[in-house]
Each structure stands twice: as C-alpha cells, then as structure tokens.
C-alpha cells in the first residue's frame, strides 16, 4: 500500500483516512463462503470508479468446498500484477490465518473472526483487527440463516475501510440481487450495512484511493480474460464455434453458447475435442472464420485436424487457455508450457500462426486480430491464453466498438477462367473459395489433406510437395515482415532485457519499473506474435548484455524455457537465457528481480 500526502475532496467523510494509490486485499476462507462474490464486486466497483484492478483466485481441486482465496489489487495507477505481498488479509478460519499470514506484509492489517481464529498476537509485525463477523452477521440478518451473508458483512466492512463509493456499490448489489428473492436481498443488504456501520477505523485505519489525474476520461469496464476473449470473437464477426468442455477454457464456450444466437450464430458442444475442431474447420470452409477452443490436453487431440487446415489452407481460430501439463496436469493452475505444441505440434512441416495476449484487455483485441490474420492468410491461428488471464478480472478502457465490430460476409466472388485454388503466387496466400462460389472454369476446388498441385489435385510428384511446402511457409514469412517490432520498455540499451510473452508480461514489466525506480535500469519487452516471430528482435537483443526470457514453464533439458529455445534458435544468440518456474502461479515481481540478480552475478 503506497501512501502519499495528496488530499481528496471527501476528506470530511473519513477525516483520518490515509490516502493511498494501491492496495492488495486477500480474502481467505472456504469456497462456499461466497468470497468470490465479494472479490468480484470489489473488482467491478474499482473499474466503475476509474481505478485499475486485477484479481486472483484459487479454486480448490475438490468439486465442492475446501479452502479458497480471492485476492484483489486496486490501484490508482496501472496495475500490472496481482501483488507480491498483501496489505490487508481477511481470515475467516484458523486455516485461513495459518495458510496466508506469511503473505501479509510487515505493517499489514489482519482482519479476523475472533470466534474462529486465534492469531499469534505476540507477532508485532501486523495490526490485528478482530471483528466477530459471524456473530454480527447473524445479529444483522435476524438469526435466520447460520453464517450465510458474512461475505456481505465483509464487503461493507471493506467498503468503509477503503472509503469506497457507497451509492455505486449499493447499485451493484441491487443488480446482483435482481435474480434473487426479496428475503435473500433484504438479508444481503442488512449484512452489508452492518459491515459498513462497523467502523474499523476505531481499531485499525481507514484508507482512501487518490484519484488518478492522468486518466483519459474514457470509462473503464471490468471483465475476465475468458469473457474478453469471447466478446472479442463476437466483435470480430465469428458466428460459429464448436468445443468440448475443459477447464479453464469452458467459460468461453458457455458465454458464446448463450451470446451467439443473439447475433445469429451457433455454438456447438461437440462429442469430443476432435469433433469440435473438425466442425469448426467445416464451418470455416463454409466461408466464415470459425473458432474452437480448449486447454492443453484438447490441443493435443486437435493437432491432426489443425494440420489439415494448414495443408488445405483454411482459416481457423483455435484458443488454448493453458493450464499445467502434461496430461491432466494441473487443471486449475496456470502455466505457459503449450508454446511448443502450439508452434510445432502435429506431424510434417506445418507452419501456423501463434499469438498470445498479455493481459485481459489484450485478450479482447488479440481475438479480433486472430480472426483477421486467419482470414488474411488462410491459415489456422492459435491463441495461447492461460488460466491466470482467463480467470482474473481486470479493468480496462471501454473499447471503441464502433471501430471494431465487424460482420464477416461470405465471399462468393465468382472465380474466373484462370482460377487455381492453390496458385503459387509470390506471397503464397490463397483466397478460399467457399462452397457456393461460382467457378467459371469448372475447376471446382476439392480441398485436400493430400499434397496437391495448384489446381488442388492430389499427386505424389515430389515437385508439388517442394513447391507447396515452400508456399505455405512463405506466406508466414510475408506476415513476419509486416508484424510490428515489439516496443522496448525502459532504456533501449543496457545490461538487462527481460523478454516475456502472455501473462508473464505484467510482473515482468513491473519488475523493470521497480528496478528503474530503484536506480538500476532494466528493460522489458513482450512478444505477442510467437509464430512467426516479428523481425527486428535480433537487433534489439544486440543492445543488451543479458537477455532473460521470463516464462512459466520448465527450463528444459538444455537450460532454456520454450520461448527462450525458439529465440536462441532463430537469433543464434548465446546470451539468451531463461527465468522459469513451474509452481502453477504467476510470477511475483520479487521472484523475477531475485532471478535476474542470480543470473547476472
């Protein structure tokens, strides 16, 4: 929690409130306590009050019940990571206290339920605030329902503690309660007001977020990465998707199943991962780019069909919300270990496009871009998201939908007498003629997984294979030429360049910022286009002494993570090394800084 002396207009409300720019709040309880609801409402409120926000939650591996946490970081400035240490820890139970007290920073506040938790008050590093949340909630609700509603009591408590916008929060609560019956809603509001009325300032401290003067004025919206991706695809004009349920991908298909009919589209729950990708390819062949999505195990199953789409040059978008692997792995934890299968998966020389969003906002924009790339290059595009981006909530500026939303009419342009579906043009890019397209020369395209000639006819003459393999590669080389070179954050040259992709972007960038602020210049760069890689990377790397690739995957047999190995192969630069970890959690900023220190010393 960074404090400053700036003043604010509503000082009168909470005269002793400490102005802050950033706070990390972790709520620890059990999964049935409704802490996720509190966390999400907090996150959403932050977005509505022009604060940046990022959340993080753990889901127990059990089907129902078990310890669970929700962490939310709210900031007046940009929020890049969910926070290494916690400013305020809320512990409902003894196990919550014991499991999470180590995350509380020195000087942090522990809010605990004295009926359930006996903290070690001798530990003078923390401020202890005992609030009998269970008892007070039951009193407030009128003794009706056990301790249900204590999450709402807590929300009130936090709202008062951080001087949050009460009218907006009440509106959100009413929206939230719209689907619930009146008595539940009454109990909710009673619990909330009881919490708000419990002035924690008597025992601890109240805080107030300093408004950010630099905001563009565009309102913020709040969503998860999976939501952002689903709506990005819809904005891009995708009207058909097919998938099979798998964590942590499923919520994208759930959203699209509910939303697509409003746009005239269909989302198919297929019988298996293979059927899903095949149905999506079938729909794409029909003339509109279609989507399938999955997590690692499903991507493994889909690789053969993706190979067909590469061979037949059919556009397709495949989303992989990565989780820990191999095999069933860590279904509810994040990892970035599917880069190899995304770039190389499948048999044969099989070039495809691979991109990765770096945060929730980017998940929206990269989906739109992926659809465009698939269409423009007649090629499958794999989007590598991950569990951390997919599940966390972030605030970002409302996208300019007017400029972004597009329809994707089927291109039935009649093909002339010289039409060849796989013409060996200089850029190698074909233009798919979907069924229904009049073909003047009567040379109707038969799309094939067999190697074929320019007319699409199969043949085993090796010269076709040489020409067509080169053609499929060449079109991605043309794409690489057009891709923007990634921007370097920090000095353009120096000792250390941190390279990241996907969700490692936030903590990596924050690590560079912290290092610069501490007087030790460090630069950071994030690669969004992973295959083909943009040009110009080698030139950037040549200006630094150490190039350290930060990624959540194993350091591998030879000491480099998956992106690091690809970068070494394509830049022939032995200074490229890796910072890797496989604990299923996003990088902490301190972990990165410690690893940098260890690597360069």
């Amino acid at each position, binding site marked *: 929690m960074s404090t400053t002396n700036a003043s604010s207009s509503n000082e009168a409300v909470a005269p002793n409130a400490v102005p802050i720019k950033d706070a990390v709040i972790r709520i620890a309880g059990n999964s049935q306590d409704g802490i996720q609801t509190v966390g999400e409402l907090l996150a959403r409120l932050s977005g509505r009050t022009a604060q940046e926000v990022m959340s993080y939650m753990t889901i127990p591996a059990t089907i129902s019940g078990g310890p669970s946490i929700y962490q939310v970081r709210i900031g007046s400035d940009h929020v890049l990571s969910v926070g290494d240490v916690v400013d305020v820890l809320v512990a409902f139970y003894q196990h919550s206290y014991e499991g999470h007290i180590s995350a509380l920073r020195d000087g942090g506040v522990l809010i605990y339920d004295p009926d359930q938790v006996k903290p070690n008050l001798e530990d003078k590093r923390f401020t202890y605030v005992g609030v009998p949340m269970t008892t007070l909630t039951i009193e407030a609700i009128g003794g009706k329902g056990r301790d249900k509603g204590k999450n709402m009591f807590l929300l009130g408590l936090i709202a008062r503690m951080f001087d949050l916008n009460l009218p907006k929060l009440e509106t959100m609560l009413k929206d939230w309660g719209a689907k619930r019956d009146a008595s539940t809603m009454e109990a909710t509001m009673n619990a909330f007001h009881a919490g708000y009325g419990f002035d924690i300032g008597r025992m601890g401290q109240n805080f107030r977020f300093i408004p950010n003067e630099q905001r563009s004025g565009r309102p913020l919206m709040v969503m998860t990465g999976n939501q952002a991706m689903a709506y990005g695809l819809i904005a891009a004009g995708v009207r058909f998707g097919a998938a099979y349920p798998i964590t942590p991908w499923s919520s994208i298909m759930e959203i699209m199943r509910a939303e697509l*009919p409003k746009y005239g589209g269909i989302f198919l729950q297929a019988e298996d991962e293979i059927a899903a990708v095949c*149905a999506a*390819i079938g729909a794409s062949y*029909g003339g509109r780019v279609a989507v399938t999505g999955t997590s690692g195990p499903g991507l493994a199953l889909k690789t053969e*069909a993706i190979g067909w789409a590469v061979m037949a040059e059919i556009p397709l978008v495949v989303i992989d919300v990565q989780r820990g692997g191999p095999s069933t792995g860590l279904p509810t934890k994040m990892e970035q270990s599917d880069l190899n299968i995304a770039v190389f998966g499948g048999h044969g020389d099989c070039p495809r496009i691979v991109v990765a969003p770096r945060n929730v906002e980017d998940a929206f924009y990269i989906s739109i871009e992926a659809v465009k790339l698939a269409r423009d290059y007649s090629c499958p595009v794999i989007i590598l998201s991950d569990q951390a981006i997919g599940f966390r909530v972030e605030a970002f500026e409302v996208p300019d939908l007017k400029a972004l*939303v597009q329809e994707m009419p089927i291109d039935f342009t009649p093909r002339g007498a010289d039409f060849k579906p796989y013409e060996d043009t200089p850029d190698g890019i074909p233009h798919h003629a979907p069924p229904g397209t009049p073909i003047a020369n009567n040379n*109707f395209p038969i799309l094939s997984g067999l190697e074929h000639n320019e007319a699409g006819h*199969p043949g085993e003459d090796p010269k076709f294979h040489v020409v067509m393999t080169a053609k499929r590669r060449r079109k991605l080389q043309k794409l690489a030429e057009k891709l923007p070179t990634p921007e370097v954050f920090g000095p353009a040259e120096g000792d250390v360049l941190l390279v990241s992709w996907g969700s490692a972007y936030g903590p990596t960038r924050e690590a560079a910022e912290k290092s610069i602020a501490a007087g030790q210049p460090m630069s950071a760069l994030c690669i969004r286009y992973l295959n083909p890689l943009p040009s110009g990377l080698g030139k950037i790397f040549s200006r630094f002494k150490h190039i350290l690739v930060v990624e959540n995957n194993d350091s591998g047999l030879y000491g480099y993570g998956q992106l690091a190995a690809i970068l070494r192969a394509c830049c022939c630069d032995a200074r490229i090394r890796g910072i890797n970890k496989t604990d299923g959690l996003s990088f902490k900023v301190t972990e990165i800084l410690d690893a940098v220190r260890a690597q360069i010393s």
Partner: protein
Amino acid sequence: MNNATNNPSSGAAAVAPPTQPGQPAPYKKVELKSDRPTWCPGCGDFTVLDLYFRLCERRQVTREKITSVSGIGCSSRFPYFVQAHGVHFIHGRAVAFATGLSLSRPDLHVFVFSGDGDAYSIGGNHLEHAARKNIHMTLVVMDNNVYGLTKKQTSPTSPIGFKSKTDPMGAMDTPTNPLKKLISAGATFVARTSHTNPQHVLQMMERAMDHRGFSVIECLSECVEFYPGAFDAANPRKGGQFTLIEEKKKDGTPEDAKRHDPSDEVAAYRLASLPFPGVFGVFYQVNQPAKNDKEKQLIDTARAATSNAPPLAVLQKTFDRMK
C-alpha cells in the same frame, strides 16, 4: 416394397428447382465428371459415383448447392471425381466436418461419402452423435467389409473367419452391425442397399436426400481386389437373394399388416438383426426436428428479443452492463 421412387422432393430447401430466372441452364451428369476415378476396375464405388451424378442431374442440384465431403479410404476419394465443391478431410472425421458445414450453411445439401473403416471404426463416435443430434446431411457408407486402400486388413464389418493381413488366421471379433448401431443411436433415416442394384441405390439416395435430418445409407460395395465375392449372397446374378423391405402402404388391407412400418424402431431393429444377406430398403425413418432447425429457432427467438438489432448495438448493450 418397390414404390420408393415417387416421393416428392419435399423439405429439401437446398435443392434448387430445375430452372429459375438467372439460374444456369439444366446440366447433364457428364458435366459433373471430374478426375478419372482411381478405383480398381470392377469396384462397387463406381456405381455409387455414377448414381450420385444421376441424382444431381435428376434433381438439377446446382453445383453451388452441394458439397461432397469425405474422410480417408478408397471410397473417400469420391469428391475428387465430382466436378463440384468438395472436401477430402482426415480419417474418420468427415461427419464432424460436415456437422459444422451443415449448421453454418443452411443453403447447402451436404453429402458425406465414407467407408466401413472411416465411418464405423475410427469415426464411430461422430456417427453416433451426428445421429442423435439429427444434423441435416446425407451419409453414404460404401461398405466393403475390408480395408482396401491399405491393402487388406480386417475392418469393423469383416465377418468372423475373414482372413486378412491383420488376421491371417481369420477375424475373431464380432463385426459391428451398422444398422443396429445407427437405429439405437437415434438416426432418423437408416437405409441399406447394394451396388449390384443401381436402381435401388438411386431410390435410397433420393429418399435420403428428401429426408430432413441425418440420413444414412449403408451401401454394400464390393472390393474386387481384396474381398471378391463378399456379397454374392445378396446378388441374384451370383445366385443370391436381394430381398426388398415391403413398407406399409396404410391401405387397410390385411396384407398391409405384415408390411414393415419404418417408424417402428423395434421392428427396424429386428430387420437389422437378420443374418446376411438380410433385407434391403428403408429400415427406419422418423420425422424429428433436425438440430439445424432447432438452432434456427433459438436464433430467431434470441434475435427477436434484441428486436433484430445489429451486432454493434447488441454488443454495446452487453458492454454497458459491464461498465
């Protein structure tokens, strides 16, 4: 029964009437011919190909309104020999591909050409689910009871005792019964025919095409190279029996009581259980809404709820709620 040819072409929205203003002149089946088929001389698949041409000619389906999709195998070479839009997909997944195509392109009639290995072995799961979902398409399985393209391995329909390269001592596993499998999976049109009776193949194709939903034709198609004589028992020219299913005419006559009611699932299942050569014709046919139509209804309801707003307005409204 012998009266199957005269069904009117109802329900086939994909099928264009012969001549409409602005439509090309009627075409002849010869125009549909493409690459010279690479099948062995005498292969049963030639018959199916020729009858597909005749079907398209008879119905004047324009080439912009059909798509031939296949997987892998001898029979799956089919689309290359048809001068129309087509797809030669991967092994076993043609039905899954066709599912996406059919749902997203209601203006097309999607034909899938497959074989016993492609449809009943590697693609068995997709068959079952396309059947229960009643995806609108016509699947023709050219069943030769053997893997031909890979040169004589046991197929899921090879009879016990069949000597192949993978079962030199004779096949030991119970063969799959595709008709029973399809009926129990919920297919809404299941027919059986044989390449040795072209007229019957064409009848079945026409009825399948007119059926709204998932229609399947199991067509015996002899592999002269690796399993010659497999279907002699069903070929009158070789001394066998080609017994037709007599369908109920619902004329109230006493003899009608003995005829087969294609909507009777149990009766269909009983017919499908007859030992080879069994019977030929429509085993099972019921009218149930195709998934395509149910999805359309879902879309119509959802669009009406938005007052048919354009995508931008619908998405804007959703985003406003998330601010």
